[in-house]
């Protein structure tokens, strides 16, 4: 159940960023799974509310309007940005470079 919610949120946020899911999805899941228990509970609660909000209120709207509404909704914006940041980090990861 917990994994399903996290996966669903990642999927929605890839879609909102107009990107296809890639090999980094599992890395994002690993990242969330590695957070401390209390943080993971917070992320789970936030993700559940995010999914309910997304499908019950804004699902049918265009992407731009969806993003605008999500950004303007306090707390929902936090979980939205959390996933968005993780996806962006993964999309622009530069694994080829050596450590500096």
């Amino acid at each position: 159940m917990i994994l399903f919610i996290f996966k669903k949120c990642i999927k929605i946020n890839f879609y909102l960023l107009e990107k296809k899911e890639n090999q980094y999805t599992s890395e994002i899941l690993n990242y969330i799974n590695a957070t401390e228990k209390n943080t993971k509970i917070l992320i789970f609660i936030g993700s559940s509310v995010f999914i309910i909000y997304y499908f019950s209120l804004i699902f049918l709207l265009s992407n731009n309007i969806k993003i605008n509404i999500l950004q303007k909704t306090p707390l929902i914006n936090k979980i939205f940005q959390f996933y968005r940041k993780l996806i962006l980090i993964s999309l622009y990861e530069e694994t080829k470079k050596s450590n500096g």
Partner: protein
Amino acid sequence: MADFTIIGSGAGGSAAALELLKNKKSVEIFEEGIEYKNNRMTVLESLSKIWRNNGITLFHGKPILNFAEGKCIGGSTVINGGVIAHTNEEILSKWDDILGENFFLSEDFNKKANEVEESLTNENKIAHPEYVSNSSKLLIKAAKQKNYIVMPTKLAFKNIKTIHNHPFGCENSNKNSLDKNYHIKIKKLGGKIKGKSKLLKIYKNKEFINEILIENTEDKSLKKIKVNNLVLSAGCTQTPKLLLQNELVKKVNPLNFHFNLKILCNYNDKVNCQISSLLSHHIREFEKDGVLFMASNYIKPLIASYLSFESSTKIKEFMSKFEFGSVFNCQIRPDFSQAKINKSIFFNDTVINWNLHDKDFEKIKKYLKILSELVFLSGAKEIILPIEKNNQIFNDLQDAIKRIDNLNKKDLEITSVHAMSSCSMSKNDKNITNTRGLVNGFKNLYIMDSSILPSNTGQHPQLTIMTTVKKLIEKNLESNKF
């Protein structure tokens, strides 16, 4: 049984261990995190493996602040070590008043600070001109136009062998410090550093700590260990957490920290700031006010994450011209805002709450405007402000200033990496620790990390933490208190 059992292998724990070993005391260090071996890691991997709670320790309040600290052998010095800065005399003088003795302003403290500095820096102390990043060069150029004070930054280079020959601004955010120098000396003198060892419980008998329970974070096995003296050096959020969880104290002191606010920008021509993100200089014009400007890590994954508030098109546009961009940091010492660490009602854990004080909010606005001006002076054609809303891209200074003036507190994106003074030393015996680093009410429980600093340094605190610990150890040894 070792003479001293130290919890944490960061700046405080390492300095304490080395000083004790030099004085023929046996030492055992337990560190919750793993050993970072300079492996190639992605940003997400490194966040998961060597940062506490994956780099997202939250300070709840308005706005929510993200505090980042290390959880690996070397502690926060691995992820954020590097800058060697002396705390200014005005602050040290206030600290001496709190302690009621000539400790921080003494000649001896200064001598020790120089010794610690020598042990961390190489001959040059500052970055070789070849390694000065383009971001720093741009900022220096702008600062000189305003006649602002620009100072080269002393860096903990000792034994650091990386492609840029520096511990700061690595491509994947992994930095190296004490594990490359102090820990080598500690091991040579017979000290033991055990990673993957989390302190779960502290057992006390009246005024004495007699046993601790350590969990191996890999196989989850538990081990009880008898202690002679327990030194908590787990850092400014973890040390108070251990005290509160084990009911050794009822409450801890407010936590002081710095604000970090980043301004992204774009230039008309390629500036190639991604080649090296070495933080080589600080703009110290506003140092007395606790404000420093500097270049920041310009690496793709981090920059992309800073852009998360913008639309997909704008993110794509910025990232496609990555070589044209840069990022600058405004580090601010709050004058009024502090965080409170309390025991959680729901979990056997602590929660950290804070609120941005109005006067500190005004201070942030003031210095965001000054940094914006500097960035435009450096030649930037547009800047992106640290605001959690879209369309925060400005190509005119006046528009940026107007936006800053109309800012809402809760929309600011603030992070922090330096925190301190949650168990501050004081002559007042109702405080957490006394002037020897001993927890009041106990005979063999010491705190030796950033928690004991009496207030905010306004500077990178590593040198001050290590010097304070070194002096405290000597003070205890000299007065036969150990």
